[in-house]
């Protein structure tokens, strides 16, 4: 463990915490522009977090300790997830603690707790949202695992830093399996982050909401933590996608200069990705909930074909 490694690890965590709300603001701003509205401004998510942290948190009378603990668990899961995904550098002291499979497990842990907390108070919307979240989760997780497998078959390691190091710093090679995995990953991230074809992040309409139904009972600092965790999740997924499919610009170990250059590269890639996401959300309509299994089934199948294309050696 080098000093530089510790620095880049800390930098990465701080960056994730600070940039994640900005990414959400950026996407919302683009969506507003594309829909001919003027938009709330880039800093709106920070203002929202500030407001929520200063508000009193209201709890239901029969809320169990689990309900109170869940926001902290979810937030720390997402924070750890964004800490082990190599965004700036591949020299991360925390990354041996968790590989790609454990990363999927982290997301699953957060999902289980947020669903349990939603059912805890016993409102109809909470359990409705929890069921839908679980429906999406159990279909998206195997697909995500398959995507990560098809990426990890190339360097023959499931450690995220090794994968990114291999993909970013070996001589230029085009892997057809990654093309399949990339499309599958895009579909999974749309579903997992409650973006438009699967769920609308801005709706509070009872019949269609998934993510909003889960956190309906929360207020004050708990809601702030959950909102922050949601933006961290989006940030983590974006960074994972960038790290696997567009890994150029991520710094190697013992290269302080590259670390300096990695930051603008990451911001640029996230800005382009966020704008593309906004375009995608604007041009597509939300699908019926019963279409979601088909959508995610397609993603799973694409990921499986990615693995097959690699194994059968095209």
């Amino acid at each position, binding site marked *: 463990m080098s000093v530089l490694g510790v620095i880049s690890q800390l930098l990465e965590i701080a960056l994730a915490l600070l940039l994640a709300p900005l990414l959400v603001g950026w996407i919302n701003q683009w969506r507003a522009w594309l829909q001919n509205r003027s938009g709330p401004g880039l800093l709106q998510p920070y203002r929202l977090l500030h407001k929520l942290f200063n508000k009193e948190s209201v709890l239901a009378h029969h809320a169990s300790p689990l309900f109170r603990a869940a926001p902290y668990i979810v937030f720390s899961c997402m924070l750890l997830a964004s800490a082990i995904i190599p965004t700036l550098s591949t020299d991360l002291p925390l990354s041996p603690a968790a590989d790609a499979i454990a990363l999927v497990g982290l997301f699953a842990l957060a999902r289980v707790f947020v669903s349990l907390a939603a059912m805890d108070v016993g409102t109809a919307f909470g359990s409705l949202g929890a069921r839908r979240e679980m429906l999406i989760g159990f279909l998206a997780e195997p697909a995500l695992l398959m995507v990560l497998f098809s990426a990890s078959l190339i360097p023959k390691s499931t450690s995220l830093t090794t994968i990114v190091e291999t993909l970013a710093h070996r001589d230029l090679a085009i892997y057809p399996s990654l093309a399949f995995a990339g499309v599958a990953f895009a579909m999974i991230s749309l579903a997992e982050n409650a973006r438009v074809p699967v769920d609308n992040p801005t709706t509070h309409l009872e019949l269609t909401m998934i993510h909003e139904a889960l956190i309906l009972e929360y207020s004050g600092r708990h809601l702030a933590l959950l909102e922050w965790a949601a933006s961290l999740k989006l940030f983590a997924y974006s960074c994972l996608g960038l790290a696997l499919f567009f890994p150029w610009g991520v710094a190697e170990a013992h290269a302080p200069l590259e670390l300096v250059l990695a930051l603008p590269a990451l911001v640029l890639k996230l800005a382009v990705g966020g704008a593309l996401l906004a375009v995608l959300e604007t041009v597509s309509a939300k699908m019926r909930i019963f279409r979601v299994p088909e959508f995610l089934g397609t993603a799973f199948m694409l990921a499986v074909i990615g693995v097959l294309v690699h194994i*059968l050696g095209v």
Partner: protein
Amino acid sequence: MSLLATQLINLFAAAILLLAFAMISQRRILSLIHLFTLQGIALVAATAVVGYVTRQPHLYLSAGLTFLLKVILIPLLLHRVIKRLDVRWDVEALINVPTTMLIGIVLVIFAFNLAQPIARLSLSIAGGTLGIALACVLLSFMMMIIRSKAVPQVIGFLSMENGLFFAATSATYGMPMVVELGIALDVLVGILILGVFMFQIREQFDSLDIRHLEKLKDS
């Protein structure tokens, strides 16, 4: 250089397979035609890269022919046909989409295994993509079987021709020019005849559902 070219060919091959899968999962005819056009573009790109690497000028010619035919002319004809038949939002398949996908995966594994010994014999630069080409042929075949309407079946037929063409390019650097011209003409004439055919089916049965054709007599 040659390594990068091989990888590029592999990438285009993967795109062709990806589009074949997108086509069997697509329900709307309009999107189906767009996907078919995209597949044509990927095919043109793959052929051109093979031609560039092996310095075979006749492959450029066949790429140009494919572009003219499958990216411009046939999609244009199909657009006209569906506009005049008014079937832009047709949604019908005999098997539901997830099952189709699963069968598709099985077909891909089968095709890859089948093509592996042949690809090992091939000295061509893109020999490894033979499995993908074969998988495309089988997938389009399946698309023709599971669709009950005439227009998707025609598109499946054309997509199968795409797969065959790609197989020829990847295994043996393309067919002789005479054969290629003949096939191009055949496809063009075929689509014209099928277009007329579709109008006739509609005239007779007031629908494009080919299940009506199973009855021999009109009652």
